[in-house]
């Protein structure tokens, strides 16, 4: 109830700004803050939501500005509207071109590539005189006009800029709260896991760059109109760094933070009223100090103060109360799948995986039958996890074929394999650590009637009903594993066992036909293992087939229908638990030749 009231208040204040700010000079600063706010919102899409560092946003900003300047300079202001659209679109296309390298580059590589892009654009703006007029710049850019009404003067421009910024913020806000926002967060937190859970990583990253570039281009277009003159010295690395600082100082990954940062950094130099060098000195030191002492930015700082002073204690700070709740609650079972029990679901033939000289899998043949619990065991380094990585599409096998549900998945992308109904968990947890429990699970959920980007941004009825359906599916999965109590907890506040179970829930939420569990019992105590056994059996009852990689032999012997034993990447035995237990080759693989002999002597004597 409070939220709409605050929004209304902000809206009224925003409308009243030109009435209160009488000096034209300050109103010009307000307008600059709007433009840079839009640019900061744009950077926040790739940096804050998708976790990709771009140091070339000044280049995108410049493209938008030059497109508008070239189209409208010396002409009528009516041309602004097509120029604005074209600025956004063209910059968006350039954003796609940056987005594609971003697929292959992570972290510092991407930072350097985008830095290089910014430098290339700067070089072009300065030197391509035929088009950009070099240092002379382009002047005489008319204010936007509707024909009968021109946005001349800072007051009128203010309302135009405010409208654009508000629209951008609304769209970005919707994006952040949507399934796409969660997917971007998933990529940011754990890219590999995101792919395995069915997120089309490259498409989403490129789309994030596209959206960000469109917004940056629009900001550039508005900038050209605001200042009616542009020259290349505005589109240099310092501006990229400044926008980066705005996002960080305001609050990275938040809706309001970037705009707040833009306002602060636009007004600060004017408020300090000292020479430019002194200001820059303070500004540079301020960025470093801010990142060291207040990683959440001004917004984060405000939230902390709020919590300390007024709200006393938030849910996040609550001590973890009942982690040891041992009784599994009664739960509703997932919709049963029609299974043709006994037919092969996952089939590997002659799979070999080499890493340089190391042969991790050697001519492996394996089939997992529908409806069974199939355990894959073997000493450390025998290739168990490698097989899961190959089957889930993280590695492409050196040779051999793998098929799932009668379609070949050899060398297929993880998200395509996930789409066929093959889910997995990771040996070392790969959760999306900035999301809550239910959001982690939601990333795995898919509906049959999925809405697209347009639906999400326009918030159509279909998109909203899809969201409700997704929530329902995620809650079902959480109920299934008995974690619904913790649904809104930040994932990192859960103890280890529960985090493992959230990974299982995330996999279940995909409604898979086969679920591959990679050492689910690692780090669990006996009581926790017992609960795990219950859960695995329940999964099978719900119609899922299970491939279990595990070192915990009591667990394997209790749940497995069939066991395959690997050693040095080869299959050395296969059969039901009792036959595996007595298989001399298996004992030798685990305990060595001499120990086996001693054991045998011991048994006979």
């Amino acid at each position, binding site marked *: 109830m409070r939220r709409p009231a605050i929004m209304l208040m902000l809206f009224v204040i925003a409308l009243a700004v030109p009435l209160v700010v009488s000096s034209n000079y300050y109103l010009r600063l307000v307008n600059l803050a709007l433009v840079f706010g839009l640019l900061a919102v744009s950077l926040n899409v790739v940096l804050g939501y998708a976790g990709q560092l771009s140091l070339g946003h000044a280049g995108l900003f410049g493209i938008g500005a030059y497109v508008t300047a070239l189209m409208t300079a010396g002409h009528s202001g009516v041309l602004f509207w097509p120029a604005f659209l074209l600025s956004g679109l063209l910059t968006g296309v350039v954003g796609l071109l940056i987005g594609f390298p971003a697929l292959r580059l992570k972290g*510092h590589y991407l930072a350097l590539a985008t830095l*290089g892009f910014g430098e290339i654009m700067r070089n072009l703006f300065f030197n391509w005189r035929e088009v950009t007029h070099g240092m002379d710049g382009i002047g005489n850019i008319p204010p936007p006009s509707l024909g009968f009404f021109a946005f001349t003067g800072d007051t009128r421009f203010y309302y135009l800029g405010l409208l654009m910024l508000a629209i951008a913020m609304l769209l970005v806000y919707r994006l952040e709260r949507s399934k796409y926002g969660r997917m971007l967060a998933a990529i940011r937190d754990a890219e590999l896991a995101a792919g395995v859970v069915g997120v089309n990583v490259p498409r989403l990253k490129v789309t994030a760059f596209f959206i960000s570039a469109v917004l940056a281009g629009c900001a550039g277009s508005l900038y050209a109109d605001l200042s009616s003159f542009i020259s290349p010295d505005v589109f240099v*690395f310092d501006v990229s760094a400044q926008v980066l600082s705005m996002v960080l100082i305001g609050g990275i990954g938040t809706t309001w933070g970037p705009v707040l940062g833009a306002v602060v950094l636009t007004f600060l130099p004017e408020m300090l009223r000292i020479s430019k060098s002194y200001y820059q000195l303070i500004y*540079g030191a301020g*960025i470093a100090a801010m*990142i*060291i002492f207040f990683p959440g930015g001004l917004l984060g700082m405000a939230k902390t103060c709020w919590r300390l002073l007024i709200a006393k204690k938030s849910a996040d700070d609550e001590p973890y109360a009942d982690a040891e709740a041992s009784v599994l609650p009664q739960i509703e079972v997932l919709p049963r799948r029609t299974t043709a029990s006994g037919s092969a679901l996952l089939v590997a033939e002659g799979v070999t995986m080499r890493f340089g000289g190391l042969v991790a899998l050697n001519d492996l043949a394996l089939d997992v039958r529908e409806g069974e619990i199939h355990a894959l065991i073997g000493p450390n380094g025998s290739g168990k*996890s490698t097989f899961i990585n190959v089957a889930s599409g993280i590695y492409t096998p050196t040779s051999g074929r793998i098929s799932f549900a009668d379609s070949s998945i050899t060398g297929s992308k993880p998200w395509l394999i996930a789409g066929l109904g093959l889910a997995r968990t990771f040996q070392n947890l790969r959760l999306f650590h900035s999301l809550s429990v239910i959001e982690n699970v939601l990333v795995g959920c898919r509906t049959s009637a999925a809405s697209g980007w347009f639906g999400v941004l326009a918030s159509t009825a279909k998109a909203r009903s899809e969201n409700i359906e997704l929530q329902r599916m995620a809650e079902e999965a959480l109920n299934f594993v008995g974690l619904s109590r913790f649904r809104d907890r930040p994932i990192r506040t859960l103890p280890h066992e529960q985090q493992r179970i959230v990974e299982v829930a995330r996999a279940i939420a995909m409604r898979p036909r086969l679920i591959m569990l990679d050492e689910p019992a690692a780090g669990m105590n006996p009581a926790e293992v017992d609960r795990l056994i219950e859960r695995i059996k329940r999964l099978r009852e719900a119609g899922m087939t299970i491939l279990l990689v595990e070192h915990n032999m009591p667990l394997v012997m209790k749940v497995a229908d069939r066991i395959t034993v690997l050693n040095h990447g080869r299959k050395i035995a296969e059969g039901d638990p009792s036959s595996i237990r007595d298989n001399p080759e298996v004992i030798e693989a685990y305990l060595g030749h001499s120990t086996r002999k001693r054991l045998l002597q011991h048994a006979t004597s």
Partner: protein
Amino acid sequence: MAQVFATGLAMGCIYALVGLSFILIYNATHGLNFAHGELVMLSAFVFYSAISTGAPYWAAVLMTFAAMAAFGAVYQRLLFFPLRDRPMLAFVIATIGFSIFARNLALLVWGPNPLRVPSAFSSSSVNLLGVVLAPEQLFIVAITICVLVAQYAVFFHTDIGRRLRATAQNVEMAQLMGIRPNRMIAITFVVSAVLCGIAGVLVAPIFLVDTDIGLNLILKAFIAVIIGGFGSLPGAVVGGIVVGLLEIFVAVFISSVYKDAICFSLLIFLLIVFPQGIFGERVAEKA
């Protein structure tokens, strides 16, 4: 032609020194020090001031190195240490902040006009096998070779070198072996800053010293380490020399105004098709 080559080689050696010291910090901390060019800039200014006091050349050089060593230690303590457990991005942004700070500090202390540092050599050219070369260029190449040999000797043939390498490879394991990682990282920053000091002393006589030399150097050093392969010390050296030569040949034979654009296009191209560089680290994420 040989002169062009020598100029490129000399510039390449500077890039190699900057790239090398940049990679030393990267290897030890996985942090990208965006203020690295500013370290070179500061040392060039300090060197100018030291020379201006009338001190002999060698004394000015020593003063610069001492100042840079002290600076490296303080820099590490103030900027890296508080951020050591935070994501890579935090350190990157803090160093961007520091580079803005350092440039404006230099502007306030040494003023906006480019400064000229006198050359250490009396003659302006030497004749080597019929090719006329600037003595500075030979000096730069010779010093760079000495630095590389010294660096190699320290890293691979001394106890402290082994400790430094152990810390760079695995901090936790090094700690369990009785190495103090924080001290090793501090030493790395000091060594890196002194290398920047050497680069600063070498560039000061051939450039006019102003507050913008750092940015150009660090951008070229980035290209150098990408070409050589991120994380590789020999790669940084080879990459630096390649960039120095490439830059001068592009400027002479293709276009001097677009030389930077061409260099950066090459950077992006290389990042996409050949991201591991000549001696580089594996780029793929481990499962």
